[in-house]
């Protein structure tokens, strides 16, 4: 039996039928015949062809496009229950692109195992998705800051005997740079390798709960990748995506040597953090050698 609330809601929803016939006519008149539409379906090759074709024409850089491709593959498999075909990947691509477009800044911490080092990256993006500022903190106090078209590279001269920085031997190089590769990081590097060297992707997935959040755990294997100039090998990565945002939050990189997975690096990603105002500012320390490579600069 309908209640007064039902009646009111039905009345309210009638508004969404307004101009319906007119709108339908307008839409139908603007639709092409389906026979003229490109119909594609199939397995991974179709998906890759489609993904590349669409993304490369957009404003997203090639590098980011490759990253999108990887994420799309992951998300596609997750969403469509384990199968991978052109349809699911292409649909999932929208989610991945969407997720990337919303990132205002990215913070990545990378830890390598041999040698045991820690790197920290912050990247800020413009509204149209370009990387406009970056800060990289590397071991032994090395620092790279890019902002407003200028890149600073600070290399402190580190004296291991005294465990001190020797200022007069430290350098700051300054150069003009219009754009920076976008975005740096493990997922992107892997993706670039796939794009450039044609690695074979295999994946397995599981959905998990972590700290109360649903995550997608993806394992990707890249066959016959160039690990060193003269050495080919397989690389495996475990990447954990937050199911809600579709963004990668952690990754582990393994090189497969003699059938054994050897951990090479761990990565942590976070997004849209509140950044310190001076994060992308660089002040030249007193007493260091300055190499200004900009036009008219001091060399």
């Amino acid at each position, binding site marked *: 039996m309908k209640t007064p609330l*039902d009646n009111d809601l039905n009345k309210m929803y009638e508004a*969404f039928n307004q101009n319906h016939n007119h709108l*339908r006519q307008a*839409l139908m008149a603007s639709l092409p015949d*389906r026979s003229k539409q490109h119909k594609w379906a199939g397995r991974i090759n179709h998906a890759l062809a489609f993904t590349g074709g669409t993304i490369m024409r957009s404003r997203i850089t090639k590098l980011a496009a490759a990253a999108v491709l990887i994420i799309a593959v992951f998300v596609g498999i997750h969403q469509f229950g384990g199968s991978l075909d052109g*349809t699911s990947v*292409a*649909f999932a691509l929208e989610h991945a692109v969407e997720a990337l477009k919303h990132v205002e800044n990215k913070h990545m911490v990378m830890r390598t195992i041999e040698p045991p080092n820690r790197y920290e990256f912050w990247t800020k993006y413009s509204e149209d998705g370009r990387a406009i500022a970056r800060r990289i903190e590397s071991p032994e106090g090395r620092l790279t800051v890019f902002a407003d078209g200028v890149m600073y590279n600070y290399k402190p001269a580190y004296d291991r005997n005294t465990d001190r920085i020797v200022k007069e031997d430290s350098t700051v190089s300054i150069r003009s740079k219009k754009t920076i590769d976008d975005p740096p990081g493990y997922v992107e590097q892997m993706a670039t390798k796939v794009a450039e060297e044609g690695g074979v992707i295999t994946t397995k997935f599981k959905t998990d709960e972590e700290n109360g959040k649903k995550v997608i755990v993806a394992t990707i294997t890249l066959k016959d990748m160039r690990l060193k100039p003269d050495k080919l090998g397989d690389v495996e990565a475990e990447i954990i995506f937050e199911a809600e945002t579709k963004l990668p939050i952690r990754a582990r990189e393994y090189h497969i040597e003699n059938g054994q997975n050897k951990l090479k690096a761990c990565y942590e990603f976070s997004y849209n953090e509140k950044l310190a105002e001076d994060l992308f500012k660089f002040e030249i320390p007193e007493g260091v050698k300055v190499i200004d490579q900009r036009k008219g600069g001091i060399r």
Partner: protein
Amino acid sequence: MTTPSDKTLIRALFAGDKAAYEKLYDRYAPLVRAVCYDTTGNLADAQDLAQDVFMRAYEKLDRLREPARFGNWLVGIARLRCKEWRRQKLRSPNKSVRLNDDQAVAPDPPDNSRIELLREMITTLPEKERLALHTFYLQGNSADNAHRIMGLSRSGFYRVLERARKRLEQLLIAEQENI
């Protein structure tokens, strides 16, 4: 005569029967407009967005993996389009994509205050509950198709719907007490 299912209509469409899409449009356009209205807040923009959603869906039909879930897929496209619209608004606040107030189509006569109030209250509900109301009341007051659109079991759908209705009733009571 039985109503053709979404799957039947999509098959017919692929076979070259463009009129099948008209039937799908009739079935889902009000729902898509309601979903878009949640974002735009006015019917004119919601209608524009909904047209765009149907255009995109038509272009992307080859990617629809399960034709029986067309409604669910379409609502997904609508939500994505709404996100884009919001972003567009944020980036170009001066180039408003919303019509001016005098051009905007009022979704209901202004004298019907309870209806107007209900509409406002619905926008304050969680998205899932809003969608449950939209699908139920725009799919002939029936859960037959509504629960599939939401990707929920029938009982799960009713639970969400009941929650939404209860919340609305409470809001209405609170409003009356305030008055």
